[in-house]
């Protein structure tokens, strides 16, 4: 049911593979250097047009690849349209009216600030052939390179040490055997070898005190083990369930640096951080319909895990299905299927936790409790979420009271009382039972 992945090893492999990937990166880039204006056009396109247009795909507006050819190279018309489509429509231009009506009379944003050369650059980009997908050869070299790079690993060092010690031990045994043989050959008296050496076991069993102490230690040790086992019952640290949609926090929070509370907005005001509703996803994914994370293609490690661009694009399609988004018509079908996420962090009912208190008031970073979410390909529970863990933090954390009028008088009085400059959450009453249990 619960699948806990050995994350450390995975992340290690990832880091290795990325290193090797970066080696092959420059080579790929060098293959096809695009023309300068195409480069500039791409930039402008992404800034201004990509929200509604794609090159080879109908979105809010038409696909733009080959748009110059579509309008028979009539760049003047295109300039006029892009700078202010509405005035063109009002003037009764037949082509303008046709495209306006084809797209349900959706007004295109006017771009009066774009110069003709800017527009030329964009059009050049739309006309440029698409860059070929990354060469698989690069991946192969990366794979080959991977083991070589892993020489620094602790495990390898440890393994080498074990081998060395093993060799030393063998050498010792050999030396002893040789010395004994030499002694025998030389006739040196070797009686001591034959005298009955009191075996350790006999010595041990004849010493009741030692037996007693050992038994006591064994019992204590096993009790400790049992206690340790029992204490982790119900602690789901590392719990990383398989989710219905493979949502990568790494891509969203890490690669794209989206702030946590952009999606988990209720963490600012509510006790719940809240799983974002699907309309939040669609804010971006209305235009981001496919994953193009690495222009040069996925890394070997990603491929090993199956995290190809096609895979991620497939996950976006799952989102479309759930939210009921028809890509063809660029509209909602109204048939939605809510996503049943598997809950990772779950406190028992008797513990009250409020996100707003920690996120907004205390200004605690999400990562303090949730770990390096921006690196998590699969989200997992980073902290044990036990009461001891809460209390440790409350004892250690100093309350940030600057600029908060609520704390002004309370903080002054309390810090005088305790004779300290800064107060911990515990000193503010953060250890009282009823603050979290009611």
């Amino acid at each position, binding site marked *: 049911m619960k699948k806990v992945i050995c994350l450390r090893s995975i992340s290690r492999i990832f880091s290795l593979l990325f290193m090797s990937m970066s080696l092959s990166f420059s080579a790929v880039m060098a293959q096809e250097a695009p023309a300068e204006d195409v480069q500039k056009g791409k930039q402008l396109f992404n800034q201004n047009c990509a929200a509604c247009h794609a090159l080879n795909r109908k979105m809010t507006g038409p696909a733009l690849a080959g748009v110059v050819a579509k309008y028979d190279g009539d760049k003047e018309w295109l300039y006029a349209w892009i700078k202010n489509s509405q005035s063109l429509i009002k003037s009764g231009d037949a082509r303008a009216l046709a495209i306006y009506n084809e797209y349900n009379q959706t007004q295109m944003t006017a771009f009066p600030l774009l110069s003709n050369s800017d527009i030329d650059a964009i059009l050049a980009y739309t006309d440029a052939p698409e860059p070929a997908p990354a060469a698989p050869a690069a991946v192969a070299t990366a794979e080959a390179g991977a083991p070589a790079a892993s020489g620094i690993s602790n495990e390898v060092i440890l393994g080498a040490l074990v081998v060395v010690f093993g060799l030393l031990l063998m050498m010792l045994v050999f030396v002893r055997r040789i010395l004994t043989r030499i002694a025998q050959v030389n006739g040196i008296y070797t009686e001591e070898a034959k005298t009955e050496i009191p075996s350790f076991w006999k010595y041990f069993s004849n010493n009741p005190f030692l037996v007693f102490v050992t038994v006591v230690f064994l019992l204590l040790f096993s009790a400790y083990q049992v206690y340790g086992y029992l204490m982790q019952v119900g602690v*789901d640290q590392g719990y990383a369930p398989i989710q219905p949609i493979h949502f990568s926090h790494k891509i969203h929070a890490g690669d794209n640096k989206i702030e946590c509370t952009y999606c988990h907005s*209720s963490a600012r005001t509510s006790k719940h951080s809240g799983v974002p509703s699907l309309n939040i996803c669609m804010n971006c994914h209305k235009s981001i319909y496919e994953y193009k994370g690495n222009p040069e293609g996925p890394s070997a490690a990603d491929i090993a895990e199956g995290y190809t661009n096609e895979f991620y694009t497939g996950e976006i399609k799952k989102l479309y299905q759930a939210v009921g988004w028809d890509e063809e018509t660029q509209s909602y079908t109204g048939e939605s299927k809510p996503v049943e*996420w*598997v809950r990772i962090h779950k406190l028992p009912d008797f513990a009250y936790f409020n996100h*707003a*208190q920690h996120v907004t*008031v205390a200004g605690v970073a999400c990562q303090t409790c949730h770990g390096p979410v921006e690196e998590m390909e699969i989200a997992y529970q980073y902290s044990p979420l036990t009461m001891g863990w809460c209390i440790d933090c409350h004892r250690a954390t100093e309350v940030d009271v600057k600029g908060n*009028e609520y704390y002004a008088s309370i903080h002054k009085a309390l810090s005088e009382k305790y004779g300290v400059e800064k107060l911990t959450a515990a000193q503010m009453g953060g250890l009282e*039972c009823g603050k979290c*249990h009611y």
Partner: protein
Amino acid sequence: MASTKNYWKSEAELNSNDPAIQKLRNNEFVSELPVDQFLGNKETLDNTSTNRRDFLKFVGFSTAAATLAACEGPVVKTIPYVVQPEEIIPGVANFYATSIANGFDFASVLVKTAEGRPIKIESNREAAYFSGANARVHASVLSLYDSSRIQGPSLQGAPVSWSDLDKAVIDQLNATKASGQKVVLLTQSYASPSTAALMAQLQAVYPQVIHVAYDAVSKEAALNAYERIYGQRALADYDFSKADVIVSIGADFLGDWQGGGFSAGYAQGRVPSQGRMSRHYQVESLMTLSGANADYRLPATNAEQKRILAAIFGGLSGTSIAVDLTEAQKKMVDAMVADLRKAGSAGVLVSGIEDVDAQLLVLAINQWLSSASFDPALPRTITSANASEVNAIIPAMAAGQVGMLITDGVNPVYSLPNGGEFAAAMQQVPVTVVFATTPNETTEVAQYVAAAHHYLESWGDMSPKAGQYALAQPVIRNLFDSRQIQTSVLNWLGVDMSYYDYVRAYWENNILGASSWSQALHDGYFAQTASGRSAVASVDAASSAAALAGSQGVAMELVLYTKTGMGDGQEANNPWLQEFPDPISRVSWDNYATFSKADAQALGIVNEHVANGGLDGSYVTLTVGNTSLKVPALIQPGQAPGTVGLALGYGRKSGLKELMQVGVNAYGFYQAFQPVQEVSVALASGMHEFASVQLQNTLMGRGDIIKETTLEIFNTAKAEQWNEKPKVSLDHQEVPASSVDLWDSFDRSIGHHFNLSIDLNACTGCGACVIACHAENNVPVVGKSEIRKSRDMHWLRIDRYYSSETSFEGDNQKKDDFNGLFGDEGSLGGFGQLEDPSANPQVAFQPVMCQHCNHAPCETVCPVAATSHSRQGQNHMAYNRCVGTRYCANNCPYKVRRFNWFLYNNNDEFDFHMNNDLGKMVLNPDVNVRSRGVMEKCSMCIQKTQKTILDAKREGRTIQDGEFQTACSAACNNGAMIFGDVNDPNSQVTSLSKSERVYHLLEHVGTKPNVFYHVKVRNTTEA
């Protein structure tokens, strides 16, 4: 030595040769045990290789497997919205203003919704009128989640579509229009201007439609009297805050009299300020909330009340009216007349006598006083019911003159005295349509049952008083395929608009003027100046008084009344209200006949405490006319001899869970809408088991539990005299008990320190706080049998005490005068006498919840530190830490801790709202649902105080006074409970804590509670 005696059970046994007898002797069981049946085929059983050891192995293996499997944590799913509504943030409650008008209760309320679920009703304090929710309104949110709700329209019990129902109604409307038969629309009083307009529209299209409003509990006499003098079918309004002298002749105006809602104004005048408070006279037959709060109370039968009213009129007007009164009554009348004369316009007289002459006289007396409290110009328009119209329906139906009957919000088969006739007459009507939220007696006999919205799912409006308007909006989408009648009427009329559009258009055209609809909807109410109504006729007071003066009593009067918990019985399936102890009798889950002690003795009625701690009472048979009922009897101190009280609203059977089918239906006695009937009483066999939460009815002279004094002493004497602080001896010095400490005290000077102030003068015992606490804190319902074992779970109780002498002061005096063990002044017999309440006792109410002691006895005895103290003054209870030793409850001097003897949720033994998914929707997500075997108690609503603190922290501001509230203090309409931070020098609770009237409960114990009470001051001259 072995006995040779033979014991025999029957004569046949003596014949030892009988084979049957032989067999019986040898076998324990007479018939052979059907072992084969439960073990299957005997042959297979013999041949099987499974032996006992194998069986144990299997058991062991499966147990081990189950245990191992249990280690695996469950997979919990989280399903977010697809499109999250803008106004909903999971975990943050929203409040919406709406209003309730169900024909019996009227209030502007705020509804707290959690993730779209309404979970609590709060009073809408900003509303200008009916701003206080009573106990029933607080409980009404649970009725939304009644698992027995009707889930869709049906025809003869089979589901039918709304369009089919509409078609049937429209066809019949057209058919009756052609045939000339009537269509009767029998509904509750809506008090809704838009609904009235809609019904008029229906009648304009279909003139054969007759709209009859029907109140189960009628206010006919007062309506008739007002209509005669002021020309409108309405009720004169009263504002008791403006009265110095209040005289009530049989009006329970603190209860449900004329729609209720008077207690807030009353309480304002009852708190002594600048040496003044109002004086309240009450003449009544039963012990009511109003009588319990009165300064002077006189028990009198209905006929005596009429004579007293005539005598008061005579005294005030100076006309001599020959009235037959006893000495005590004369004395009371003289006092009332003298005080009313002196008060002049600051006096007011109200009456609940269901007699037009009496009500006319009330209008005349208040007119004569030119009473400031009396407001006939802007009357209450809560009801449009007309008894004669209701009475005419059954004959018309029986005669076949009615082509269709449509009802909404009423249950006439249950609540009419001749409900059986109504049901029979319904069979003569070709089409019957009953709108109802839950199955009831009327839906049982109806053809079409139309599932109606709960009021929290409905649009609506009300105008409870001239110039005062309130809006109702749905706070949740209808849970089932239900519809409100207004929507249906619009459909029947072929009007293509929703009722929302209709209400809005009506308000914008007729009410709002230039004001904004959105603002009115947001506020939930709208007030405008209305033109006052003046008298169109003058009262012929002399003849009314003469008619009353001659009224003659009967041997035994039955007085029908409504209880604070159940009202008219609409919410009989509401477990909170069933479990709500009656404020006066403290009995829950029942109605019963109340008797005076004298009558009980004469009739041989006994009330006794039995070995298991329960209260048992005799049964009596009450007979009015041809109707008889066997009813349990309860002896009620303060009841007028010659009267029997019986509450309406109980005895519902149809559509109710078996556990909820309690009490008897007293509507059978409510003939001609007269609450007073001649009755004959006979003792019946058997004893009834009551579920009473308070068996000790008197204080036995322990004046330190409820301290009280009179206004005279309060004004003239020093506080030490009437509010003596208990002293203890320390080093042979008498020092205040609160100054002696065993332990070091916590430092509570920094941060918040919560205190709750309870003013015994303002508390009328209405119980709104009890239900509010129930709703806020997920307090479980335990049922009648558990209550009987004193296992009630109420975190907040309102203790009611009777004096044993004529006053509590008399009790104290008697106790102080005890001298020795035996004899006339002996304590041995004396304490026994003190246990008996007086025939007309003084009554005091005292809300008691966890006192949140700063030196809590419970904290020191908990072996696992599950209950501990906080710096903010709250006594914490960590349920998950509790192991259930119950030491704390035993060590609590206030007996406010409650133990979960059973699992009260998901348990078929307690089949109340927490046992079904629908009912669980009412639970407050911020408060834990407790499990079996743990202690629970009032937390001083820590979830609310913590939220207030967090909101302030988040917004970076200090907290204003009044922001801190508990469920009970927020629910108190009378201002009796004030909660706040005593470390805030400007807070109301801080100034209250400095009052001379402050005392703590059992102060000598030294617990230093954070709840404090105010000495009750009575405005009496003697004692």
